[in-house]
């Protein structure tokens, strides 16, 4: 008896929801959580890019919305922000020379996006702008705000274009898949030249085109083992590193002479 009653209420509620969607929402709001299997990724000698899988769950999903596929998720892996100079070559006496340049503050070194559907199908351009979501909506802060908007726009576009061309900014449409009603899996690409440092993974939940919630986690990307040691030594003990490089060269030259001598 009781069971039948609740069933009936649910039907009534969902009917109501269909009729007046804005007012009759279920009090429980949806949430999103993501988890990384590891909080650090090490780049080794053979690193030639990789896919990073991020698992996440949807809290309190509305089964009806879920069944109709109206939940959308966008997962972003954002590299550490760094200032960047964009330079443009122009012809001077026939030779291509770097002439104009524009410096931008806090540009994420890398920016990989994975989505359930093409970005334009998920929500409107305006909400992407507000969320500063997606490589083409990232706000790039020019160091010199006095430059003309046209120039800034031109260099911003060039910056995005170069970043995508080198694989640092990427988009993986269909990279987020629902494994069940609550569980999803996102696959973001790590470019071969992925920068080291603290990366931020963020997941955005949309319901019927409306932004609901965001969740984030941190990921440390670093060089491991041999390469990491060399890099660290080169920067902290640069004099000794230089001496080592010279000794290695002299030793190689001497050994090469011993082994391969032909006179």
């Amino acid at each position, binding site marked *: 008896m009781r069971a039948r009653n609740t069933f009936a209420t649910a039907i009534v509620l969902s009917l109501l929801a269909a009729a007046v969607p804005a007012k009759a929402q279920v009090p429980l709001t949806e949430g999103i959580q993501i988890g990384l299997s590891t909080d650090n990724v090490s780049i080794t000698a053979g690193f030639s890019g990789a896919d990073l899988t991020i698992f996440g769950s949807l809290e309190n999903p509305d089964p009806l919305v879920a069944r109709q596929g109206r939940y959308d998720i966008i997962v972003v892996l954002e590299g550490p922000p760094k200032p960047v100079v964009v330079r443009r070559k122009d012809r001077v006496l026939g030779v291509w020379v770097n002439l104009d340049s524009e410096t931008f503050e806090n540009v994420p070194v890398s920016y990989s996006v994975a989505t359930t559907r093409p970005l334009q199908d998920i929500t409107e351009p305006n909400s992407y702008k507000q969320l500063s979501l997606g490589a083409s909506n990232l706000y790039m802060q020019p160091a010199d705000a006095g430059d003309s908007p046209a120039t800034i726009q031109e260099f911003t576009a060039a910056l995005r274009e170069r970043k995508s061309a080198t694989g640092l900014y990427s988009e993986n449409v269909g990279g987020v898949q629902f494994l069940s009603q609550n569980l999803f899996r996102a696959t973001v690409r790590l470019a*071969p030249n992925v920068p080291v440092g603290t990366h931020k993974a963020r997941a955005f939940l949309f319901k019927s085109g409306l932004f609901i919630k965001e969740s984030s986690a941190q990921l440390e990307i670093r060089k491991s083992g041999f390469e990491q040691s060399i890099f660290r030594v080169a920067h902290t003990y640069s004099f000794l590193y230089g001496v080592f490089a010279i000794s290695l*060269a002299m030793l*190689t*030259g001497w*050994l090469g002479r011993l082994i391969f001598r*032909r006179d």
Partner: protein
Amino acid sequence: MGIYLPIAEISVNIFVLLAMGAAVGFLSGMFGVGGGFLITPLLIFYNIPPAIAVATGANQVIASSVSGVLSHMKRGTLDFKLGGVLLAGGIVGSTGGIYVFAFLRRLGQLDLFISLLYVVLLGTVGGLMLVESVNALRATRSGAAPVLKKSGQHNWIHRLPLKMRFRASKLFVSVIPVLGLGAGIGFLSSIMGVGGGFIMVPALIYLLKVPTNVVIGTSLFQIIFTSAYTTLVHATTNQTVDVVLAFLLMAGGVAGAQYGAKAGQRLRGEQLRALLALLVLAVAIRLAIDLFVTPPNLYSLSAAGLN
């Protein structure tokens, strides 16, 4: 097989680098030059950032020069005193070059400057050498007696003060041009990542009239130290020396150099010079084309605040 370069921060193919080292080593052994003028452009063509290509090129030059000097020491074709004076000038020039290098890098004009220097210098040296060696080849073919350099033949350089005697080179000459030449080579070494043999050798022969047989050994001897100094300064100020990259190039290079030296002994001097001239000109032309051809990407990115 890929390998990750810790300083250049990119993955490259290990065999491409070994082969590149071996090919350049062979040529450098054959012509008695360090090969830096070939390595640095090749690395740049292979997408290694120019700043790292230059610093690592200087590092690699040490290995091939050591290898070469050892064989010259055995033959006694090395003037230590002349090399020492050249070196003193080289240290000064190299120091200046490092500052110019860091300055240009900040300005974003380093790549252009490196290419321009390569085109101008390689073009000039290659052109002059080609003309000279073709004339020499013609002269020998027509049967005319080769014009031998007379010891009494002097130019304005030999009238400068502060003369010094260099026994092994049978030379009595002012130290000013020697120091100046050393400084110029040192400057180029730090900006271009070259040992400077391709300029040093003709300059010693044509300007200072050093006997050809001691020129190569002496030039290599001083290049070891100028390049070592350049490597050290690049390592400390710019952190642009990649030992993994350098080692791969050296390993290929020293092997190739010994075979090249053997091959070089079978060719006559002017034939060797004509071939070297053609090679130098080819690199210059290749780099010049890049300067004039519309680049595929007009825009480039670099980290701001880089020194």
